[in-house]
């Protein structure tokens, strides 16, 4: 399904149910949209800067030659034209800002999808929801609390589930991967040494939660139940992340992991964690299959 640019610009959401080939094509399109937006932003940024500098130089020059009436007036008008063009370039630049999406999200999705596709039928359908919205948006606000130390200040907490991938492997195991970004923002009025009050705000990442659910066919992997209580030891994660939850039922294994804030947008660390989670789950399932034979 081709990406509707106007729709995408509005909600910054890529949602699709399609096979690998289409998903890869769409992600490539997203990366092209992003790089075009980056190039255009750069171009208009430069135009705005140069026309502004040119305007200032001409303005100074016009003052210097103010005694020569006609030339000075021409220079003033040129200065005005350059400043107007500078504002126009800034407006154009801001329009592309919205489409300058984070490379990290689509690059990571591409990597994860390729990794998962290795154990899937080429015709299998990926169900993907990939959002490029910032975590700190009103719709992702989950709570507002008073600041524990600064009187009058508040802290907003945000949760944004920006990636969901669902599909099925060749062995009929269904998987569901969810990535949820967390952020906190503290804000309030601060009085400076001069006595003036200023509104201040500060944001920081709260880390990234990764939840993986593997719903397996019982006939193939039902023997999982005999080592249900020892599965914890089979989970191997990189040092950048910690295991937050592990649930094993008759039909599914659910693994929840949290990445520290400094790695929440580290493409390599997140991919490494996701891969390790899948491998950990299958270290268990493959042994269950050996026993169920």
């Amino acid at each position, binding site marked *: 399904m081709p990406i509707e640019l106007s729709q995408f610009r509005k909600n910054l959401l890529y949602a699709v149910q399609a096979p690998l080939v289409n998903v890869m094509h769409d992600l490539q399109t997203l990366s092209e949209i992003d790089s075009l937006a980056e190039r255009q932003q750069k171009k208009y940024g430069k135009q705005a800067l140069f026309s502004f500098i040119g305007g200032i130089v001409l303005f100074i020059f016009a003052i210097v030659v103010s005694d020569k009436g006609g030339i000075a007036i021409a220079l003033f008008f040129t200065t005005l034209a350059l400043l107007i063009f500078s504002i126009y370039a800034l407006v154009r630049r801001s329009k592309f800002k919205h489409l300058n999406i984070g490379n990290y999200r689509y690059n990571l999705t591409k990597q994860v999808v390729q990794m998962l596709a290795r154990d899937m039928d080429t015709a299998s359908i990926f169900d993907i929801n990939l959002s490029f919205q910032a975590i700190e948006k009103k719709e992702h606000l989950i709570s507002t609390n008073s600041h524990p130390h600064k009187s009058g200040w508040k802290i907003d907490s945000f949760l944004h589930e920006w990636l969901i991938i669902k599909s099925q492997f060749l062995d009929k195991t269904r998987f569901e991967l969810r990535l949820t970004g967390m952020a906190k923002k503290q804000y309030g009025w601060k009085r400076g040494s001069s006595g003036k009050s200023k509104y201040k705000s500060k944001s920081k990442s709260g880390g990234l939660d990764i939840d993986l659910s593997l719903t397996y066919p019982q006939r193939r992997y*039902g023997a999982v139940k005999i080592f249900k209580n020892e599965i914890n030891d089979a989970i191997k994660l990189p040092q950048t992340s910690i295991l937050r939850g592990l649930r094993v039922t008759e039909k599914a294994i659910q693994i929840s992991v949290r990445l520290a804030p400094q790695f929440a947008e580290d493409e390599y660390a997140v991919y490494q964690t996701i891969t390790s989670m899948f491998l950990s789950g299958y270290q268990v399932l493959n042994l269950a299959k050996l026993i169920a034979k």
Partner: protein
Amino acid sequence: MQIQLSWIDPNTGNRREPILETPVAIGRQFSAMPPQNNGQRVSRIAIEDDLIADYHALIDWQNQELIIISQNTPNGIQVNGVQLNNGSLDNGDRLQIGSCEIVVNFTPTVSSGECDRMVGFLFKRRCGRTDRIDCPHCNPTYQEDYAYYSGYGDYHSGCWGSDYYYNRDRYYYNPETGNVDFTEADAMSLENEYDGDFEQNMGAS
């Protein structure tokens, strides 16, 4: 000796072409087929088909010929359209067991140019491609693939699950009830054990 059996799975419609060491048992219930025959480990093929008995037939190599022995099942076996209980098999013969037609090949069809590597990232399966050029699955090395999980797929001593792995033949998993138990063979080995040996094994003085 290795043989290759090819059939279309009646439930999934997928083609199955495993290369197996003889003897080979065919049936509907994995657990109903014997794990060993005359001291040899049996390759067990479970096909979910109502017309196939829990333990339907055994293919074995005897006196330099491949034979098939029906396990007294009401539906019997057809070899190249002929109903029989026991018989010898030739390369390319077609077996009709239940609603499944199985082709028997003595020589595996994996030719020298064909990739016979086990591929797959999370679970292994045969590659089956005719060449390795641009194959996304054949080329990565084990280290590249499993760098994030050292020892992936290893259940040997010291690794996670080693106890279960070494005793895997002793477990019996019943897919109907979902229960996992020790096998009858294991129970019998315990019965045959002398009381003295049992006590010694338990560390009694």
